[in-house]
C-alpha cells in the first residue's frame, strides 16, 4: 500500500518537473529572441532602421498608449475581426443547413462551392470595396467571406457523416425533416462546428488585415501600411506584435469556449 502511494507520488513529481522544464525553455526562447534582436540592432548587425528593436517598440507603444493614439486602432481591428468571424461562421452553418435540407440543391451547388473554395478570397478585395464602399463594412465582409465557404463545406460534410440510425430512430416516431435536424443532426455535429471556430479565428484575421491594407483609415492593418509608407518600421513592428498578441488571445478564448461547450453538450 505504502509503496503504491510512493510510486504515485513519484509519478506526480516527475510530471511536475517535466512541466517546469518545458516552461523554462519556453521563457528562455522568448527572452533569447528579444535580447538577440535588441543586441543585433544595437550593434548594427541588422539595420535598426528596417528591423527596429524591442526597446524602440516598447517606447513607441508606451507613448501611443499614453496619448491614446493606439487604442482606437486596436478597437477597430478587434471589432471587425470578431464580427467577421461570427458572421462568417454563422452564415457558413446556415448555408450548410440549406444544403442538408435539399440534397438536390447540394448537388447543383457542388461545382460552384469547389470553385469558391479554391478561389483566393483576398483577391476579391477590390470588388468587395467597390460593392460595400471604402469603410468598415467592406473589411468585415472580407473577414467573413474568407471563412464562410470552408465552414459550409466542413459543416455540411459532418452533417452527412452523422450515423443514419439516429435519424431512423426519430423517423420511426414520424419526425419531420426539421425535427430530425434539430434533434439529431445539429447536436451531433456541434463538436465539428466548434472546432471550425478555431480555424475561422485565424482566417478572419487574415481577411481583416488585408481589408485594412486596402482601404482603411484605422486599424492595425492600416498602421502597418502607413508605417511602411512613411518608413517607420518601429510602427510596423509594434502593430505586428499587437496582432500576434491579440490573435493568440482570441484563439485562447475560442479554445476555452470550445472546452466549455464540449463539457456542456457532451
Amino acid at each position, binding site marked *: 500500500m505504502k509503496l503504491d502511494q510512493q510510486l504515485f507520488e513519484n509519478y506526480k513529481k516527475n510530471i511536475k518537473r517535466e512541466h517546469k522544464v518545458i516552461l523554462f525553455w519556453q521563457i528562455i526562447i522568448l527572452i533569447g529572441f528579444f535580447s538577440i534582436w535588441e543586441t543585433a540592432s544595437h550593434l548594427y548587425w541588422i539595420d535598426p532602421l528596417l528591423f527596429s528593436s524591442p526597446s524602440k517598440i516598447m517606447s513607441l507603444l508606451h507613448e501611443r498608449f499614453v496619448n491614446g493614439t493606439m487604442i482606437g486602432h486596436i478597437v477597430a481591428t478587434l471589432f471587425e475581426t470578431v464580427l467577421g468571424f461570427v458572421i462568417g461562421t454563422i452564415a457558413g452553418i446556415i448555408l450548410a443547413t440549406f444544403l442538408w435540407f435539399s440534397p438536390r440543391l447540394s448537388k447543383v451547388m457542388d461545382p460552384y462551392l469547389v470553385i469558391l473554395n479554391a478561389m483566393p478570397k483576398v483577391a476579391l478585395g477590390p470588388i468587395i470595396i467597390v460593392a460595400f464602399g471604402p469603410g468598415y463594412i467592406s473589411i468585415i465582409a472580407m473577414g467573413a467571406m474568407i471563412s464562410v465557404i470552408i465552414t459550409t463545406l466542413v459543416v455540411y460534410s459532418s452533417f452527412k457523416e452523422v*450515423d443514419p*440510425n*439516429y435519424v*431512423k*430512430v*426519430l*423517423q*420511426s*416516431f*414520424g*419526425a419531420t425533416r426539421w*425535427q430530425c435536424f434539430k*434533434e*439529431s443532426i445539429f*447536436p*451531433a455535429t*456541434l463538436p465539428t462546428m466548434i472546432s471550425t471556430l478555431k480555424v475561422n479565428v485565424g482566417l478572419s484575421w487574415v481577411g481583416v488585415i488585408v481589408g485594412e491594407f486596402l482601404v482603411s483609415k484605422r486599424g492595425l492593418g492600416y498602421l502597418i501600411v502607413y508605417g511602411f509608407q512613411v518608413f517607420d518600421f518601429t510602427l510596423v513592428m509594434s502593430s505586428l506584435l499587437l496582432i500576434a498578441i491579440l490573435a493568440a488571445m482570441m484563439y485562447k478564448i475560442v479554445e476555452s469556449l470550445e472546452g466549455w461547450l464540449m463539457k456542456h*453538450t*457532451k
Partner: protein
Amino acid sequence: MGYLQLKHVSHHYFSSKGFIKALENTSFSIKEGEFISLLGPSGCGKSTILSIVAGIIQPTGGKVVFNEQLCGDVNVEIGYMLQEDYLFPWKTIMDNILIGPKIYRLNMEEAKEKALQMLKEVQLKDVENLYPDSLSGGMRQRVALVRTLITNPKVLLLDEPFSALDYQTKLTLEDLVFNLLRQYRKTTLLVTHDIGEAIAMSDRIFVMKTNPGSIKKTFNVPIELRNETPFLVRRHPKFRVLFDQIWSELNKYKATLEPRKSKEKKS
C-alpha cells in the same frame, strides 16, 4: 382478419451498378398481440420488412395494411428498436426517453411521470439525469426499450435488439422484454439470427431465404412454450425438437446456395 398485413410486398435497392431485389412477393398476416420472429441469414430482407412497416422506406411493390386501413393513409404508431441503443449521447436519459412524446406533442408532465414508472419496471433507478455514456450496454438497451414503449406504439419492431449484448445480459433482457410485452399485449415483429431467441420469445416464426428475400416457411411455436418465459423455454424438451426442425430448414437454403457460388468462382 389480420391486424397487420403485408400484401405481395416487394422491394428493390437501386444503385448505379444495378439493383438488388431485397424482397419478393412477401405476404403475411399478424393478429393483434401476436409475437412474430423473422429468422434467416443476412441479406434476406428481414430489416427491409421492418423499415417498410415503419414507413421509413416505401416498398417498390405491394402494400401494407394495418387494421383494415392502408398504411400511408393512416399514420401507424410504431415502436422501433435497433441493434444498438442509439441513445443520443448529448441528451440525458430522461430527455432521450421523452423524444417520442416530444415529437408526438404529448403532455410532457404526464410523459415524465410515465417515464419514471417505466424505468422502474425495467429495473433502472436514479438514472434519469445521467448521460448514456455512464450506463452499461444492457442498461442502455433497457432505456431504449422504455423510449420505444412510452409512446404506446400499436406495433413494435425489434431489429436484433439483443445481438450487441453479452450472453448473460441478453438472457435477462429477453425475459424482461417478453414479460413487459406480454403485459402490454403488444403486436411485435422481432428480427433475429438466433434460432433459440426466436423460439424462446415468439408465437410464430417466419423462416426467410435470401436472394431474393422471401418467407420460406412458417413455424408455429407449441402452446406449452409460448406461455413460458424465454429462459425456461430454452430448457423445455420441445425446444430442442423445434430448434432442430428450424436448423435443418435453414441449412436447406445454404445447401442450395453454396454449389452455385463455387461454380461461379471456377468459371
